[in-house]
């Protein structure tokens, strides 16, 4: 499961960095930087909660890595 941010939708609320600080940090302007794109098993629930909590639905969770590689 890969985590990524839709930068056009994101409005810098920062809830994602609060809920999964292991994967996301905030830059100096309050916008998310993904420090780790691959979500480890124990953080899957937290990642889903973060995606639901985003007021702009800007946090994206994508399926298996194979799909991502195909897109590239």
């Amino acid at each position: 499961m890969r985590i990524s941010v839709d930068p056009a939708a994101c409005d810098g609320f920062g809830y994602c960095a609060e809920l999964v600080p292991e994967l996301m940090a905030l830059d100096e302007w309050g916008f998310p930087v993904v420090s780790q794109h691959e979500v480890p098993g124990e953080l899957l629930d937290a990642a889903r909660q973060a995606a639901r909590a985003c007021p702009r639905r800007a946090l994206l969770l994508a399926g298996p890595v194979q799909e991502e590689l195909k897109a590239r």
Partner: protein
Amino acid sequence: MPSIDLWYTTRASGLVALVLLSGTVVLGILTAGRARSALPGFARAEVHRRLSVLTVVFLAVHVLTAEIDTYVKVGWLAVVAPFTSSYHRTWLALGTIGADLLLAVAISSALRQHVPARAWRALHWLAYLSWPVAVSHALGMGTDSKLTWALGLLAVCTAGVVVAAGWRVAGAHRAKAALPRTVIRARRSIRSRAAGATPGIGGRP
């Protein structure tokens, strides 16, 4: 059936709903305005949501008990249609309007995943309108607005909402002033060319 207990419940639940609504509105303003708080942002948003659910619950009790209580005939239609009750016609209508607005906000939020973002945001702005409508309804209906402690409670709620709203308006001006000049002009020129489009930041209630 006529019952003094029902009447007390109607008045009490109405007041509680109003206090809860005030708290919901204040939390909503602080959340959208990104106020700094001891509580993490996502938690404050969650408290805002749960408080709004409680508000709707007490509002439902308020409306139901008013209907069931036959001491005064309110009429089931008046629950959703304003100006259809003979009892305290105008002030009750305000209550109906307030409840309608809150219902729209509540339903659209419950179904948020399925509602387009712009529609949800527009409906959520109605929450700002529902609050003064509810306060007017409470004052106008008469019964408890003569009690000092009830008036005191209303005053505190009003102060909270007014201060939060004032903070938000001032903050919006401050944030805009902090944006780089070139960017303000750039975004203004985009907005003026695309009616109805909302560039990401700054377009929330």
